[in-house]
């Protein structure tokens, strides 16, 4: 399996390098190593979410509920931490993964067993999960003050000069890479996206695989629930509101085809990085914040146009003459 099919990711990488170059022209410190390291750290959460979304999109589905799942799970761990500061953080992370898994599994179950299109299911759970956050918290916020120092500190601790948050992202990227290139599940995910009917005939349980991808995206969202809350040190119902579209945008910019079957781990990571750079750089280079939205919108459109160019199928060549030319 080629790691860089059609070298889409290489182009994206080049675009990112050019972008960083352009920003550095206006703000010289931008390309400094320390800043790039921080950029990666700032984008880590989006990367993890984009990877979770990627496996779902690859199977021709979509998970609109990730941001709400993140919000709910974040609230659960924040409230747990506030009420029982003694619970060790690793255990809280496991709880976050499990809560996320359960919410993802609910999506997956509805898609699998009732055969409801994923966009409908997750449009419903998008509002339900966020509403549930309101119900469990009574609308109250969990503030920095109520969180234990470990809860906040873990992702900020540095290991080999790099924050733990970045390490978590690196680990997640590696896991996804293994999943997509080295496991039968990864192959099934691609196969379902390429041709669902053929997948049934090939003995792949399409429904169950979709269930699993929603569990994966749920776990990614759950993990990010903890990471997000401990990063921004406030848990409220409004956490990550509307972020689902950023996640999907990252995937799209990363060349993951919304029609399924096409996309790679590298693409998702770079797509997230690209969006991260834009939102990070605009304040830095003094572009009015009011321009930010229009700029990222244009970037998304541009990315789709370019990706579509790359994907455009070449006609079968029947003529010998044309083949030779």
């Amino acid at each position, binding site marked *: 399996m080629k790691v860089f099919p059609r070298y889409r990711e290489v182009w994206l990488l080049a675009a990112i390098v050019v972008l960083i170059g352009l920003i550095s022209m206006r703000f010289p410190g931008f390309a400094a190593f320390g800043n790039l390291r921080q950029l990666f750290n700032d984008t880590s959460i989006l990367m993890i979410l984009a990877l979770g979304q990627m496996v779902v999109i690859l199977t021709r589905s979509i998970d609109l509920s990730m941001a709400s799942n993140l919000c709910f799970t974040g609230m659960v761990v924040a409230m747990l931490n506030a009420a029982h500061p003694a619970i060790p953080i690793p255990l809280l992370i496991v709880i976050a993964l499990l809560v996320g898994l359960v919410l993802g599994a609910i999506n997956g179950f*509805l898609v699998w067993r009732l055969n409801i299109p994923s966009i409908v299911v997750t*449009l419903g759970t998008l509002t339900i999960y966020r*509403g549930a956050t309101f119900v469990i918290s009574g609308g109250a916020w969990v503030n920095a003050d109520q969180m234990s120092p470990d809860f906040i500190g873990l992702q900020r601790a540095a290991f080999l000069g790099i924050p733990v948050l970045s390490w978590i992202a690196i680990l997640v990227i590696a896991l996804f890479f293994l999943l997509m290139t080295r496991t039968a599940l990864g192959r099934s995910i691609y196969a379902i996206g390429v041709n669902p009917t053929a997948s049934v005939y090939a003995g792949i349980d399409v429904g169950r695989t979709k269930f699993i991808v929603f569990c994966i995206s749920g776990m990614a969202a759950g993990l990010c629930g903890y990471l997000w809350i401990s990063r921004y040190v406030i848990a409220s119902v409004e956490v990550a509101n509307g972020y689902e579209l950023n996640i999907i945008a990252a995937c799209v910019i990363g060349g993951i*085809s919304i029609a399924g079957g096409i996309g790679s781990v590298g693409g998702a990571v770079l797509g997230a990085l690209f969006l991260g750079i834009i939102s990070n750089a605009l304040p830095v280079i003094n572009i009015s914040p009011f*321009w930010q939205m*229009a700029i990222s*919108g244009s970037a*998304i*459109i541009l990315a*789709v146009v370019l990706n579509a160019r790359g994907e455009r199928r070449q006609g079968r060549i029947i003529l010998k003459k044309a083949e030779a030319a």
Partner: protein
Amino acid sequence: MTDTPAPRYIPDRLDKPLNAAIFSWEALLVAVAVAIFAVNSFASPYFLDVWSLSDLTFNFTEKALIALAMALLIISGEIDLSVAAIIALASTMMGMAMQAGAGTPVLVAIGILVGLGCGAFNGLLVTRLGLPSIVVTIGTMSLFRGIAFIVLGDQAYKGYPSSFAFFGQGYVWWVVSFELTLFLVAAVIYWFLLHRTSFGRRVFAIGNNPVAAQFSGVRVGRIKFILFCLTGLMAGIASVLITSRLGSTRPSIAQGYELEVITMVVLGGVSILGGAGSIVGVVLAAFIMGLVTFGLGLLNVPGIVMSIFIGLLLIIVIALPIVWRRVRRERLT
């Protein structure tokens, strides 16, 4: 050939139309609507009041107007996530015109034309460049609203002419608001367009199989383009209404409407995969959503808890026929 038998007779339909209607999606929605209406009347003494019921309609008419066009677009297999952003941009442009001294007719024209233009832009990207609409409109959603932010920044436009207020605040007759009237008229037009014209039939064909439709002489690109324009147009009209109702414009206007519009369409029984759906369903779904939010509002239930009900309603109403069919099949065998 020997002993050729007489051709087999194939009936037009098996189900009687009445039978089909009773077991249809619309019937299910009517039942749900009646149930919610009944529950509301019991739960709150304030519900059964003509003015309450009239105010209720303001909660959904603007979104429902867009949902009518969105239903056609989704049936054709496309989607437009940028409608709320189109509202913002159209409203901003109306505000600019208002500051330049434009009168009410010009303002209305500008709102509608900007909506149409945005829809055409989406349509061009999707049909000319062959891009997936869900992605294109995620992009234009940021772009359109982004332009509104660039123009307005932290400012607001206010001071629309008093005659402009009629569209979002006026009443045509007694408690019947202009918005509701416009919605009902539009619903009839869209019903006719989708279910009674060859244009509507082609929309269904495209949604089910765009390639075969193209081979059958359906101008797929053109029809999709028209549908995007219609959706933009309805967003433009909605923008006039909402700007008039709020009497002012901010770039954050109508934030998050797109998902509510799509929820309405899907709840109305339109297949998100394209190819199936009805306008009657969408209209019923609009009323159901209005009834639920208003009913819960009367009980002072927070909006976010209402959204749980809407989310559950969406999933349950879609799941119900599936589960029911499955149970019935299991009972048969």
